[in-house]
């Protein structure tokens, strides 16, 4: 049994939503115990024992070059090489995580690889933390209770003022399920119409929403789709569990598509999806990690004077 909340577990939609708002750096342990190549296996064993940890990264000028786990120490003990340098026995092909990726990427990574911890690196590839399933669980519990408090507060506000209607819904999307894709967008359109939002703005929000919905169904292993509408804006977040986009710049280029023939036969795969979303959005953000997933956030302002739909010509 895994200790990590599984991204595809049916009951965890709400948990996933919490995890999208958090980044690895918000959750990781920053108190790191690391060794250099020349330290011995025994040094590592002492560090583990004194600090109650089960994995120690090996660094060279703050870059991660290897990792020693409890298992490696046990092997060293049994085979009698406790005084060897760690560089001789470390696992040197270390999978690290970036500190600025969504927490869901880390959750995907834990369910895909059998590792019990990942060293976390910053943009300069320097070691800045360690993340374990325990970090994730604690952070989710903390975030859950914080949001509950918040919901109680806003709930009371809504009661007293009768305004501030917030529409917040999370949808699950399955790979190749073209039958259900598009429903969230239809619902979004209905909601905006009921609020009297100008048609041109509704169009832009619907385009962003629909393209992102289709993207999850056509290109990912499945994921979730969240719509949040308040008085000022529509926020659409599309999160999937992989496979991730190898080259985000290409994916953002008009006409670039990795769609297969079947998807194309359905009328998709023109390579306009993400570029369309970006064009109609007031704010746009994309993050993708290979084997971990992709997160796209699109925001459309409801009170924007610029209602142009941005036809491509």
């Amino acid at each position, binding site marked *: 049994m895994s200790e990590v909340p599984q991204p595809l577990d049916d009951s965890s939609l709400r948990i996933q939503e919490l995890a999208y708002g958090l980044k690895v750096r918000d959750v990781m342990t920053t108190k790191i115990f690391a060794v250099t190549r020349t330290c011995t296996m025994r040094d590592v064993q002492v560090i583990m024992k004194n600090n109650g940890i089960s994995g120690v990264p090996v660094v060279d000028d703050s870059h991660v070059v290897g990792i020693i786990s409890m298992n490696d120490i046990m092997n060293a003990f049994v085979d009698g090489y406790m005084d060897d340098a760690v560089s001789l026995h470390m696992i040197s092909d270390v999978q690290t995580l970036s500190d600025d990726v969504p927490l869901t990427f880390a959750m995907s990574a834990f369910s895909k690889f059998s590792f019990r911890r990942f060293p976390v690196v910053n943009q300069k590839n320097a070691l800045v933390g360690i993340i374990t399933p325990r970090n994730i669980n604690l952070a989710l519990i903390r975030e859950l209770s914080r949001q509950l408090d918040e919901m109680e507060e806003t709930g009371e506000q809504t009661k007293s003022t009768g305004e501030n209607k917030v529409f917040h819904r999370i949808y699950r999307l399955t790979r190749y399920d*073209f*039958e259900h*894709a*598009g*429903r969230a*967008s*239809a619902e979004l*359109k209905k909601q905006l119409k009921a609020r009297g939002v100008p*048609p041109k703005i509704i*169009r832009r929000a*619907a*385009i962003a929403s*629909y*393209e992102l919905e*289709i993207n999850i169904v056509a290109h990912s292993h499945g994921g979730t789709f969240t719509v949040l509408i308040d008085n000022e804006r529509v926020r659409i977040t599309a999160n999937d569990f992989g496979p991730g986009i190898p080259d985000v710049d290409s994916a953002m280029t008009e006409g670039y598509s990795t769609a297969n023939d079947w998807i194309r036969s*359905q*009328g*998709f795969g*023109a390579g*306009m*999806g993400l570029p*369309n979303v970006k064009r109609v959005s007031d704010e746009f953000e994309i993050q993708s990690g290979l084997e971990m997933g992709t997160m796209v956030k699109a925001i459309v302002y409801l009170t924007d004077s610029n209602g142009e*739909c*941005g*036809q*491509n010509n």
Partner: protein
Amino acid sequence: MNLKQIVETLEAVPLHAPEGWEALEIEDVFASDLISDILVSEGDNQLLLTSLTSLQVVRTAALVGAVAIVLVHRRQTPPGMVSAAKDQDTPLFRSTLPKYEACVKLGRMQEAGA
């Protein structure tokens, strides 16, 4: 031009024809087989002409506010598409004319100022 004139010109058969469809005024026609293009098409009281038989066409048409869909160059229609049209109450017709011919006919009609 109204939808009835268009349907007659294209010799189209009704798949979902809600009451009052004949009188629907069509100002624009958009012909495409690419969902992304349909999605960003702009036009008032627009008719969508397509040979795509996916039910996503019907959803996309609703999102962009197309008032009716004519499926061209098709002898068959998947049942999913018809039920989607019924759910959304979007008029849906089918013509066996190839897309180019259908466009030419509608173009002539528009020129004649019908």
